[in-house]
């Protein structure tokens, strides 16, 4: 029993990161109507800026800042492409464009970072934060979950309590009607892309030491992120948060069972499949009738 509990707690770091990445995906979808496949790749670009600078001997925290600025800039650049050329495209076209951009980002990233060449990722928050029923909860776990909760609460307060938040909600519903009222639609869209880029980058910087720090592996964390977002049906920040943490715990638990351990990276795909089947159940039922 204790083994399972330890494994579940160990999964919290990944769970917190999935939750934060998922909440960012929901934020992007709700406000600029894009299912963003590049989310994790944007963060990975920023994370590799940190790795490159620290490997070159620069101090850690200024490098973290440079990494976050890079992630923000890449996010804004992707946002520029989406708002400039695909603003009026349908949801599936936009999603397909971000999937294509993901492939491009991975190709460029692998080229620039030396492919599978091993890198040293500095651990930003080493050590444990507290003990939970005798099991150490790491600083990284506490921070990623805390950051995801903070982002969720701050998003809600910002969207419901500020004029810019009101403009973003209007923009998400009817972009052209909002623009006709003088709302700076493009600027706000770029703001959304920039903010999610910054948060995603920081989340990946925390989780990267626990993963194989190569560009492709980190970029593909978009899969569990989108699985978490799907649990929240791309609407609920809190369900997405809970879904991301649950995914991390599930992966942690799976690592203790020999038979499924080597397949645990498939868990997000199974979750995606299950949520899609569940959400389509009424249509299937109607067809069957």
């Amino acid at each position, binding site marked *: 029993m204790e083994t399972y509990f330890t494994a579940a707690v160990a999964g919290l770091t990944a769970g917190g990161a999935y939750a934060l990445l998922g909440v960012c995906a929901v934020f992007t979808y709700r406000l600029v109507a894009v299912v963003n496949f590049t989310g994790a790749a944007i963060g990975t670009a920023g994370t590799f800026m940190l790795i490159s600078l620290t490997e070159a001997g620069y101090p850690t925290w200024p490098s973290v800042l440079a990494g976050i600025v890079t992630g923000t800039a890449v996010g804004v650049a992707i946002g520029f492409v989406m708002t400039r050329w695909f603003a009026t495209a349908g949801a599936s076209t936009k999603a397909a464009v971000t999937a294509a951009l993901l492939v491009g980002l991975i190709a460029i990233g692998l080229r620039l970072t030396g492919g599978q060449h091993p890198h040293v990722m500095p651990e930003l928050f080493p050590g444990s934060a507290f003990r939970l029923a005798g099991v150490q909860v790491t600083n990284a776990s506490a921070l990623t979950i805390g950051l995801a909760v903070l982002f969720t609460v701050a998003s809600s307060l910002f969207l419901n309590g500020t*004029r810019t938040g*009101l*403009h973003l*909600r*209007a923009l998400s*519903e*009817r972009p*052209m*009607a*909002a*623009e*006709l*009222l*003088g*709302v*700076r*639609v*493009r600027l706000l869209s770029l703001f959304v892309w920039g903010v999610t880029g910054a948060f995603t980058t920081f989340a990946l910087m925390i989780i990267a030491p626990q993963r194989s720090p190569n560009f492709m592996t980190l970029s593909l964390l978009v899969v569990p992120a989108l699985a978490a977002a799907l649990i929240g049906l791309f609407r609920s920040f809190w369900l997405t948060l809970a879904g991301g943490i649950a995914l991390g715990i599930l992966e942690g638990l799976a690592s203790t069972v020999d038979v499924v351990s080597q397949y645990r990276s498939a868990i997000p795909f199974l979750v995606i499949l299950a949520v899609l089947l569940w959400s389509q159940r009424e249509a299937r039922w109607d067809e069957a009738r």
Partner: protein
Amino acid sequence: MSALRVSGLSIARAGLPVVSGVDLVAEPGAISVVLGANGAGKTTLLEGLSGIIPVTGGTIAIGGSEVQNALAGLRSRAGLAHVEQGRTVFGQLTTDENLRIGLRKGAGTDEAYGLFPELTQRRQVRGGLLSGGEQQMLVIARALLTRPKVLLIDEMSAGLAPVIVTRLMHTVRRLADEGLAVLLVEQFAALALSIGDRAYVMRRGRFVYDGDCGSLAKAPDELHRLYLGTT
């Protein structure tokens, strides 16, 4: 100076010309009515004026400043408000939130509730749950809070009860009397001509009539001929 002056305006959709060489003016304190059969190009004209779709030629000046190459948001900030066809309320936002989106300096939501007291009791109701008439009042009031020089209104009467249409038409007349320039696109020709000052009739993307509303209102046969192009 005219609130809106348009010269030689051309607009295309998917490469096909829909509006060709249109000239029009909207003066402060007056209602210019644009009439025409379905497919004549009236909605395309308004969408080109407000920047929803790009224009292919001609000039658009708001208060003397040319804006034909500006984005819709810039045209709004220059003083042009567009009440689109189909009552484009933000359905998930409350009435009050809908009104606050475009609020400009010196404007307050109380003005909107003063103009349409019906909305006062619906302040906290989501836009999507309002009746058709209330939604139309909301989008007109919302546009007015952007402090426009010129107000474009597209098919205000569509899908509304006659009593509501009459009420809205009288409100638009009052707004014009207070100094606003209004460009009204309307299928309900008789009522539009009864409140309008200047009339334009559009056929196949061109104006075939430019004159005063009173004369056209007294000549229904002429209006019919202008609509259909028969001799």
